[in-house]
């Protein structure tokens, strides 16, 4: 028997990891140099959540999938051009600041309010998905806070796998210390799942899915609400790039025997 699920994926947009980042001070706090022109991608761990959500929704007919994303509208639109070709979803955009420095509690408050107001969402069927940590703030708190605000007390972080059973319960694997997974059985939705890498590769671009998605994405972006974020007493006294650039010794003319001997010494040294 299939379970009807209402999956909401929270996913932000982040600078492409191959870009060079330089912090600057802006009138509203720390930011990145040229932040608005840096190429952006969907936050990688949240993207895993999106692909897992789509796979789960397609296995359970009648299920629904929303993608809630807060970021500058123009940037969201750019990123959606690619993301929309991956899997089918309904975009719920929120026009707001980009980057890792705004307070996570404010972001969570706005996301929770938006999710609570989603037309057609059955909170009893809700699986709240996202990345367990973002590639910007990397705090691992936003999803948890959204869950608390929505009254969800079955929460899992660092999730790599979920196996849904016929009765709606599921087994979930969470990353814990020492390269292991903690295995839990949850009675079913509502629950929060902060995803790590999961098991699915990035889906190929499918222009048909893209076209279908874009029909709803463009009007949604046009109507995107502006989100104001409070600072909640958060202030920064310094924001800087790490100083230590190492002086690398590049060794080109040693034999394998010589290198091995040097490494043995290095490994043994305190």
């Amino acid at each position, binding site marked *: 028997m299939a379970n009807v699920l209402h999956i909401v994926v929270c996913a932000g947009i982040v600078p492409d990891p*191959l870009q060079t980042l330089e912090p600057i001070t802006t009138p509203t706090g720390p930011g990145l140099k040229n932040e608005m022109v840096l190429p952006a991608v969907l936050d990688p761990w949240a993207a895993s959540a999106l692909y897992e959500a789509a796979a789960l929704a397609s296995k359970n007919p009648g299920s629904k999938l929303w993608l809630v994303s807060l970021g500058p509208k123009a940037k969201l639109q750019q990123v959606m051009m690619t993301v929309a070709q991956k899997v089918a979803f309904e975009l719920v955009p929120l026009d707001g600041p980009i980057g890792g420095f705004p307070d996570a509690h404010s972001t969570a408050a706005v996301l929770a309010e938006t999710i609570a107001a989603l037309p057609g969402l059955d909170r009893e069927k809700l699986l709240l998905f996202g990345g367990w940590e973002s590639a910007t703030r990397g705090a691992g708190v936003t999803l948890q806070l959204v869950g608390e605000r929505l009254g969800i007390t079955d929460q899992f972080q660092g999730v790599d796998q979920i196996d849904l059973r016929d009765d709606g319960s599921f087994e979930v694997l969470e990353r814990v210390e020492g390269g292991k997974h903690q295995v839990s059985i949850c009675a079913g939705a509502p629950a929060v799942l902060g995803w790590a890498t999961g098991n699915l590769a990035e889906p190929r671009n499918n222009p048909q899915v893209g076209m279908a998605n874009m029909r709803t994405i463009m009007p949604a972006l046009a109507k995107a609400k502006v989100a104001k974020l409070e600072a909640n007493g958060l202030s920064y006294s310094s924001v800087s790039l790490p100083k230590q650039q190492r002086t690398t010794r590049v060794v080109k003319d040693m034999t394998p025997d010589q290198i091995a001997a040097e490494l043995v010494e290095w490994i043994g040294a305190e």
Partner: protein
Amino acid sequence: MESILVLTHADESGSALTKASLEAVTAGIDLASRLSAPLTIGIIAADAATAASSLPSSGARLLAISGEAFAQARYASDAAAAEALCRAASATIVLAPGTSRFARIAAGVAHRLGGFVDTHITALSGTDNIEASRWFYRQRIEAVLSRGARPWFLLLDAGTHATYAGEPGPAQIENISVELPALRTTVSGFRAPTQGAQTIRPDAKILFVAGAGWTKKQPDGQAHVAEAGELILGFLHATSASLGSSKSLVDQGGEGNSVLPFLTHLNQIGQTGATPRHAKGLSTCCHGEEPHVVGWRFIGSRRAISLDPNCGWTRGKADVVYVADAFPVMAKLNALLEAAKT
């Protein structure tokens, strides 16, 4: 005036505090003495009284929550326990170890108390106020921040403070009762993602990282994957190193299966992987691209073996780069290490 609570929890035995918890205790003692603030330690454990026996010489007030429900790490029970401890302590600053167990609940608990949380804290500084250091953009940008709002929860990264090692003995604890909500989740145990020996060892002195080069065609036109696997496992056997991987290497097998069967995404270091702490790291057959190297932020001494004299490691990212074929080097290295053992 600030008042400080350190939240701690037991390890799998249920009756001893985790190493990361004892590190948080050290941070709490330091901070309390710096700010002349009262210190409370809260313990969540199946058997909190026994777990508390490592703490009497801390001089802190000890609050404890015990019971079978707290033998397992689960959001509903842990959040209720931590909330009860926080309410009993009425602290303005709550320090907790950034373990998977507390990372799962800290933000939720902070919210219940009307407070705020910052995580992955690597250092606490400041004399009359509290400043916390943490990294943004996956270890690329370091910031020092503070909060005016209270209570303020700070989750400390493991390995950033010394482990508290006071004289053990019987401890005076105050038992705190907690009303649990209906529990809908049962923890059934732990599962290792691969067959065979555990390769991720957070306490190892050295991290060994394998890159995609190990499975690529070598100068003789062939790939030598089986040999690569043996060399890698040979090194781990000889040194008890922890095994890391580049993303390219773990991705190769596609959906869950690596070409090297002992590697999974849990081994992955970097932007979308782990950022472990080890005194030394040896990178092999890996190009040292930025999304990979951000995962090396907390590795002390770094060496790399790569065929490419222009690889990322040579540009200020490693201390020493050996431009060489890793196959013969590792074969020789393993032989020397094994010979030294006997």
